[in-house]
């Protein structure tokens, strides 16, 4: 009799797989073929077709093949300048974030001193700010008519603002503030893993502390640093809100694409989108390849982690304590500003240092009045739908990909991760272009202008987060658990329902929660494709800012930050729960 079982992991181990092409045929014969079909169809329609359509549309002019758009692209100085600025901004951002993040991580991870904890708990604070909300908080705090500028004017009796924070310095300060946590957190985690014994061995062999740092500790941190650099570079390439609000004359690709679409210059928008996608992917490939050569089998080594040392010199300790307090204030100030302004009466704050009149009505209106609360409800529904689909989807992908990676399964995983690696601008433009008209030949249908466009974009953008969380949980899960369940007589369904799901769901829920809250505050992609009758909250925030309803805009932002913080705390707790006490099997 035939094996009536659909566990793809086991299949992959049993069937000798020599050819890339035989495998899909193999899988289609199984009862799980429906699942495979579903995953392939979603990927083809969601990732493959829009990407290919974007590429082909960019080399067509009036339905004829032509590179005219690209010729124009490279002869247009403004666009070349935008590409160069984007890359330069991202490289500088990486450099600044590395400097801030690595040095702070060394200080706060390796030494103890008074007030160390204050900074350490606040270090990740910028991560709870959605880019748009962070941008408006930054404008309210540091802008030319922000609280800091007003304070300086009041202090020195100046008539005009002491600075106009626009362009390069503004972008770099803001990017460093929002993205340094990537370097800080990954370096700190890396330092916790570095074996203290190796540094001690280096010292005993006669190396000076600086030598130990550069020749022993830093090389072991390389994988963490590369991961941080990658994250920072990609986030910076995708940055849109900050250039939009205070980029000044700095032209970046995301903004140029947005402007081209606003003008109706489709050809320019397409070619620039391709350019942005290519640069992002090239960075991803370059860094991942480099990372592959520098990975250490750290897990295989035994050893103790370094304990944090107290700082002995009194002066140095005072300095460290002071810096902890200063940095903690710097981290918290934008959030304080946001909260403060959220209670300010709209239109009351003109030339004063701080808003003069306070009210609860901003929140009251958002929470009770239909026109103000509808955008929140819209975002909750759309992000909720996207997160729900992502949750179910992640289990489908995990079931199809399984534990063992064959060549076509790696391709599948790559396609799943792709929308996360691409800037939101690219995903939105490619979906909008691919599903702007029906095309019976390719099975394309209309999404643009419908309710579904944003849930679909959110789903594509953020489902990789959930898939990765689920796959990590499954990889941590002991393979013999499902085998044991099988040998005890559990069917494939029972194995999924009674063993895999209970063990994986904390990680899956944590990933889904994060995807949900990130989608909730999404702006970059939303602004390109939203439907006026179904606005998400981020569009409303930007509109309120433009109308100088600062209090209302900030109140929306605070609500988002509260939701995101709550979700992150909950996700962190679930993640910890996921790591079952490792008492099993010694």
């Amino acid at each position, binding site marked *: 009799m035939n094996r009536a079982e659909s566990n793809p992991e086991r299949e992959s181990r049993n069937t000798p797989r020599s050819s890339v092409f035989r495998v899909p045929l193999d899988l289609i014969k199984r009862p799980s073929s429906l699942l495979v079909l579903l995953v392939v169809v979603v990927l083809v329609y969601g990732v493959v077709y829009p990407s290919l359509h974007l590429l082909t549309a960019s080399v067509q002019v009036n339905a004829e093949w032509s590179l005219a758009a690209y010729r124009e692209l490279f002869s247009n100085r403004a666009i070349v300048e935008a590409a160069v600025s984007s890359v330069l901004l991202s490289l500088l951002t990486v450099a600044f974030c590395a400097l801030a993040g690595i040095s702070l991580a060394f200080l706060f991870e390796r030494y103890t001193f008074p007030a160390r904890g204050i900074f350490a708990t606040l270090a990740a604070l910028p991560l709870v700010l959605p880019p748009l909300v962070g941008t408006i908080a930054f404008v309210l705090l540091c802008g030319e008519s922000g609280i800091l500028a007003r304070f300086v004017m009041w202090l020195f009796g100046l008539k005009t603002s002491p600075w106009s924070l626009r362009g390069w310095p503004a972008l770099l300060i803001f990017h460093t503030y929002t993205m340094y946590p990537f370097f800080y957190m990954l370096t700190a985690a890396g330092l916790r893993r570095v074996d203290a014994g190796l540094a001690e061995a280096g010292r005993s062999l006669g190396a000076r502390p600086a030598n130990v740092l550069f020749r022993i500790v830093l090389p072991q941190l390389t994988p963490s640093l590369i991961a941080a650099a990658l994250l920072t570079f990609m986030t910076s390439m995708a940055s849109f809100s900050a250039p939009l609000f205070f980029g000044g004359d700095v032209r970046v690709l995301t903004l140029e694409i947005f402007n081209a679409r606003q003008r109706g210059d489709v050809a320019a928008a397409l070619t620039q989108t391709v350019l942005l996608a290519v640069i992002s992917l090239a960075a991803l490939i370059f860094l991942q390849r480099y990372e592959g050569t520098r990975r250490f089998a750290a897990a295989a080594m035994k050893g103790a982690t370094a304990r944090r040392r107290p700082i002995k010199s009194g002066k140095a300790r005072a300095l460290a304590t002071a810096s902890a307090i200063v940095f903690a204030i710097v981290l918290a100030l934008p959030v304080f500003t946001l909260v403060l302004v959220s209670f300010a009466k709209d239109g009351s704050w003109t030339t004063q240092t701080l808003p003069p009149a306070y009210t609860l009505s901003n929140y009251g209106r958002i929470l009770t009045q239909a026109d103000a609360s509808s955008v929140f409800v819209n975002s909750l529904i759309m992000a909720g739908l996207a997160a729900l689909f992502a949750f179910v989807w992640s289990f489908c992908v995990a079931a199809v990909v399984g534990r063992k990676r064959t060549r076509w399964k790696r391709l599948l995983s790559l396609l799943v991760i792709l929308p996360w690696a691409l800037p939101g601008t690219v995903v939105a433009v490619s979906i909008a272009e691919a599903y702007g008209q029906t095309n019976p030949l390719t099975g394309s249908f209309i999404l643009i202008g419908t309710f579904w466009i944003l849930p679909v974009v959110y789903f594509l953008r953020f489902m990789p987060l959930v898939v990765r969380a689920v796959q990590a949980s499954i990889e941590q899960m002991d393979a013999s*658990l499902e085998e044991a369940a099988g040998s005890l007589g559990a069917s494939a369904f029972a194995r999924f329902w009674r063993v895999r799901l209970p063990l994986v769901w904390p990680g899956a829920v944590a990933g889904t929660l994060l995807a949900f809250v990130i989608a909730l505050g999404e702006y970059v992609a939303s602004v390109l494709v939203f439907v006026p009758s179904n606005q998400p909250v981020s569009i409303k925030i930007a509109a309120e800012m433009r109308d100088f309803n600062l209090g209302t805009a900030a109140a929306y932002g605070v609500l988002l930050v509260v939701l995101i913080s709550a979700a992150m705390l909950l996700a962190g707790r679930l993640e910890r729960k996921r790591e079952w006490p490792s008492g099993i099997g010694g």
Partner: protein
Amino acid sequence: MSFLSLQNISKRYDGLPAVADLSLDVEQKEFFGLLGPSGCGKTTTLRMIAGLETPDIGTIRFDGRDITQLSPERRGFGMVFQNYALFPHLNVFENVAFGLRARKRAKAEVAQRVDHALALVQLPGYERRPVTELSGGQQQRVAIARAIAIEPALLLFDEPLSNLDVALREETRGELRDLVKKLGLTAVYVTHDQEEAFALCDRISVMSEGRILQTGAPRELYEKPAVIRVARFLGRNNLIVARRLSSSDTAIGTFKTIQGEHTLEVPVERSKLGAINQNSTLAIRPEHIVLSKEASPSGPNILRANVREISFGGATTTIYLDAGGLSLEGLLLRSDGLNIDDSCTVHLPPAKLMVLGDDEGS
């Protein structure tokens, strides 16, 4: 037809053979062992019996049925995993009840059989405890209870004791055999520990490189290893390369050792005769070597030797000897006043000397 029968099983991983043309038979109520160094294919064989792997070639028959392609959940075999594979999200009761619930047994029956299984492994009263809070030995017992609760047609063990400390391992070993025998179960037990296999199993297959070298009762394997690799793997052995001198018709073969050129007389079976003037390998256990300080008349199987080294090992003492270039080790209960560099007489009793086949034949 045997109860469990593996016929010409082969299995490759990524083109490398893990199990090659393996056949074995297990009788009902037998405690059967698969013994071999790591990577010899014993666990793969067990997993194919369990249905967790499918052989590339060959058939597995159980109780007269071909089960080669049957999925594990339909086999009804209980398996105890090396790392126990207890479900961390379930408590002790739920773990043991898992197989019964998968079979949709009535609630009362589940409770009664879980109670019974936990009583058998001496863990009553632990029902509500999370498995993650148990000690290694207790987790081990839960894993066994979970496997026997389904009244398995066959019980499979994948090195279940290797994660326990030595004292606990020896204690559990005895209980395990008693339990399996009391329940009248048939068991297949995989281990790399020779002592464990000898203590537990009625019969053992010694495996190497995906093949079975020899199958037999523990004493038979120990005293009459068929091939060099079995002799090497099962305890210590003096392996002596010698050339055969006498003609092939006699029941006693005369050999001349390559090192030291000593004459040895060994009883030989006709089937194991090598050609005259060919090298063969002789083996004798260290504990079978007889040592005396007195010089005795020379003759076959009597060698003069020097004591090279003495290694005290508690109950026994190992003497390393040099007999004119031939290295031998002897195991004594007492060192009998021998000292390093003493010369002594070594007697190799003909009845204890064996002629080994080469590794390919068995």
